[in-house]
């Protein structure tokens, strides 16, 4: 990339800069799309997938994860009080892209199918991003879709999607507990693999586990900074090698508020009250938290606001090494890899060995180069299953060596 283009793109957000560069290049055409993410209890996965295919969307990516909730049991032997235990529930995380203008209506149908308006059913949200793929997402003809959906759903907007990538085994559960204690949301935990540090070491790398626990949290935008700083403190992420956190914006969504299951002491639970007020107010601004103590302890040099981009590329498992080295050569610090399955409608069968999603959290000035390098070394535009997504990340907390 030459100096002139860099100067030109200086005022633009990372994703806009990528858009402009690739349009100018003319090799890969970017599309402005919305990525819809559904986090649903495995009991309802089939219903959701069926509805997605009924809408004419041809393929969905599925990642396995678990949500953590507090279960409240009465004490044994009739003793007074309750015991609180964190229990995990297996979930499917479905992700697919649609035309931006149609995202809301598609979500309405899915909310109906999965009953996401009921606490405990799951979470659904939409994020605007740029996608590079072989084909644009199909145009959904809603008239052909059977059944009606409620189009007046009061989605929450101004939400943040905070992703914590943790290196120490067992820290996912601890962070989930912190999030539950703070009443943030129902945490989602998935597994990722990252070999960035390991690949730089010799055989001693066997002492470092490649597995990362990725904790996904959704919270009101205005609370994000204070909550993230608390999470950094609790997870001791200011120490090297323990992990990092970054956030991406959510356009709108319906969030699962059922954080507690079990014995309820009052006529309505705290979550029900909060959900009701959110609905009445139409937003979450009313529940802005006060600033918490201890945020001065966080190392300001490592906190990068307004400066990042999330680049994720879905590819065959074999391409992992090539893509990672291409990305790192172009300036990325590393990637987290998670395993995905592709579910296709009809008789389409994709002979893929297995798919992975490599996610890079990259600073703004490197974004264009990294995207360029990844597009060059991938089969995006050739293979139907391969995609590259670029999403602005307003803030990130990353330790670098």
């Amino acid at each position, binding site marked *: 990339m030459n100096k002139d283009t860099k100067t030109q793109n200086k005022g633009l957000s990372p994703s806009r800069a990528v858009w402009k560069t690739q349009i100018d290049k003319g090799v890969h055409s970017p599309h402005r799309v919305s990525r819809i993410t559904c986090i649903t209890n495995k009991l309802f996965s089939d219903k959701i997938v069926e509805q997605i295919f009924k809408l004419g969307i041809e393929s969905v990516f599925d990642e396995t994860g678990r949500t953590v909730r507090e279960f409240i049991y009465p004490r044994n032997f009739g003793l007074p009080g309750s015991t609180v235990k964190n229990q995990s*529930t297996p979930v499917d995380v479905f992700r697919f892209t649609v035309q931006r203008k149609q995202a809301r209506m598609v979500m309405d149908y899915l909310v109906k199918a999965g009953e996401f*308006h*009921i606490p*405990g059913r799951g979470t659904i949200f939409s994020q605007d991003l740029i996608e590079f793929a072989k084909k644009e997402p199909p145009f959904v003809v809603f008239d052909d879709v059977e059944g009606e959906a409620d189009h007046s759903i009061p989605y929450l907007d101004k939400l943040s999607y905070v992703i914590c990538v943790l290196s120490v085994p067992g820290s996912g559960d601890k962070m989930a507990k912190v999030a539950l204690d703070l009443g943030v949301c129902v945490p989602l935990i998935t597994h990722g693999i990252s070999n960035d540090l390991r690949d730089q070491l010799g055989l001693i790398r066997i*002492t470092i586990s490649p597995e990362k626990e990725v904790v996904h949290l959704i919270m009101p935008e205005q609370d994000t900074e204070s909550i993230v700083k608390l999470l950094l403190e609790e997870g001791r992420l200011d120490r090297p090698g323990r992990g990092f956190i970054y956030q991406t914006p959510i356009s709108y969504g319906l969030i699962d508020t059922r954080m507690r299951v079990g014995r309820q002491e009052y006529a309505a639970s705290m979550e029900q009250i909060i959900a009701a007020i959110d609905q009445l107010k139409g937003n979450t601004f009313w529940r802005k938290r006060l600033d918490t103590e201890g945020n001065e302890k966080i190392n300001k040099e490592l906190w990068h606001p307004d400066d990042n981009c999330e680049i994720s590329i879905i590819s065959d498992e074999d391409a992992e090494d090539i893509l990672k080295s291409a990305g790192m050569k172009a300036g990325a610090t590393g990637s987290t890899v998670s395993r995905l399955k592709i579910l296709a409608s009809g008789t389409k069968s994709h002979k893929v*060995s297995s798919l992975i999603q490599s996610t890079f959290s990259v600073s703004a000035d490197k974004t264009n180069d990294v995207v360029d390098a990844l597009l060059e070394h991938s089969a995006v535009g050739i293979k139907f299953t391969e995609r590259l997504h670029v999403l602005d990340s307003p803030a990130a907390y990353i330790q670098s060596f």
Partner: protein
Amino acid sequence: MKKRIKLPLKTSFGMLSGYAKDRIVEQIKLIAFVIIYLVAFQMIILQVPLANALPIAGGIAMVVFGLAFFLEGLLLGLMPLGERVGVKLPTKVGIAFIAIFGIFLGFGSTVAEPAISSLRSAGANVTAWDAPMLYMLLERQTSALVYSIGAGVGIAVATGMFMFYYELSIKPFIFIIIPAVLAMSLVMTFDSTLSSIIGLAWDSGAVTTGAVTVPLVLALGIGVSRAASKNKASSGGFGIILLASAFPILSVLTLSLVLRSSSPEATTEDRFFSPEYRESALRLFDDNDDLLQHAFSRGNEVGRKAFFADEEQYYQTLNQLANNPEITGKLLGNETLDSWLSRKASEQERKYIASVKTEPLQISSGVQLASVLKDESKIALQAVIPLTIMLLLVLTLLLREKLRYRDEFALGILFAIIGMTLLTSGIRLGLGPLGGQVGAQLPRAFSKEAKFIESKMITPFDTTVVFSSITIDGNTKQFFNLTEDNEIKTVEFFPERYDKLNNIYEYVITRAPLLGPKLTVIGILLVLLFAFGMGFGATMAEPGLNALGITVEELTVGAIKRSQILFVVSLGVGLGLVLGVIRILYDIPLIWFLLPGYLALMPLTYMSESGFTAIAWDCGGVTTGPVTVPLVLAMGLSIGNELSVVDGFGILAMASFMPIITVLSFGLITRARQKRIVKTSTEENDE
């Protein structure tokens, strides 16, 4: 691209020691329960001091290190290899080749692993006259037995591959195969010759899936499933271990049907050895010498006497046994005369041999560490290397793929071999003898009379050493002081045991029953409690189960933890062993447990979710491994010996189906909890 980081030696050492410490502490935690349990039971309840404590402690330390190395070797080397081959196979070759590859893999792994030796240990007391068919399969047709088990496992792996490739649910396979096996076993119960095979067949299924086969086949299945699956109904890679436990049962039952005509009928011991029956008897032995060896190693005095045409020949043979080392070796095989005299000789035979023996008895020395390590390392190499090479060849030559971290892989294979060697040696030197000691004492808990342990012939016996002592109520008892191993013991003198003619005193060591004759029920409960604890503790340490647990935790992203799987499965095995001991104690036919047990599994399987069903059934297949089998057999054989029950088979089969029940129940409880989140929230929001 970042350059390679060179860490200072101190940092590397710190990282390595932290990593090693974590692994070893983990294994100590897993095995601690069973060790403490066994030692406490021996010393506190049975009130017998632990013999050879130092070698046993050393053996247990070897087990801990062995488990740590072996498990790490699986995770670094074998499982990544299996998974990579599995992931690549469906993309490069068709299902036909995958199935054929599965057959070779299953067959090869069975023949390579030493599981068959567990079956022979279980059959150590099987006698040719009581259970001729069983004896024939274990001792005469061993190759046929191994190959039929291998064929069963091969077909199982091929079927599993087929199931993953076409994303079929495991339930139809369970509903077809299990009833078929049960029906065949039930039919065979009614034939007196074939009924003895049922225990062997079901135990074959239980032992086939060994420490190396399980993780390898599991990883392969997960790879194939990941590559091929596109919908929700698939089992996710689990199910092969169940098939590899069920198909061998069918193949062994079929083999016994085929060989039935060449086996003599069951008969009494004296009739079996008599010259009139010789022709039939020799169908199970090479020649007369071989038959005579069986009479000595497994028979009693009545059988030995029946063998000879007249008594003079019998006594002549006894004389040669006592004085001619060549004849001793021929008649007793690897066993020493000293051990045979305690174990099998009748009182008369002992007296006679003591009277004709010209040289003092040689006391056998303990097992040598070096020779044990050498033997076990050979077995470990045989178990790991051929399978690894086979998979590597398929990966590199056929699939044209490379392994990602070759140095890690090589290290993993090395760890697996070292680990397996240390583990099996440690079991042989430490855990096995510990279990054997406790197991040998166990029948005292429910026996009504003093148990004979061994007898020693004191000759020439100088009666002047005997002195009298008087009790409070005026009775006199006679004693003498015996010096043994530089320790002096005062022993009671029984005049009836003194042979004046030959100047020999037979010093008989017995152990009193633990509880009085009226407390036999409590004694039996004690034994059952012991069986439960041992089954629970030993299963927690099984490497195959640990590997399965790690895989389940990974695939469910932590929704089901490894510790939960370990606990629930160990609970199942503990309960299964309780049933197994009850079966031996009351001599209940095996089918009476298997039939209701497996039938109870059918509705549980039907109600459970497909993916979890496969996990649960695999848990059942994985349980009986290198740690559990020796301990369980030591216990089973000892109790069986005490009660003169024919064989120790069937216990392992019990330890296989109970865990399936506990895991499926756990799955249903977890599912109910999941539904609870959704159900109550729906009720709350009903408008």
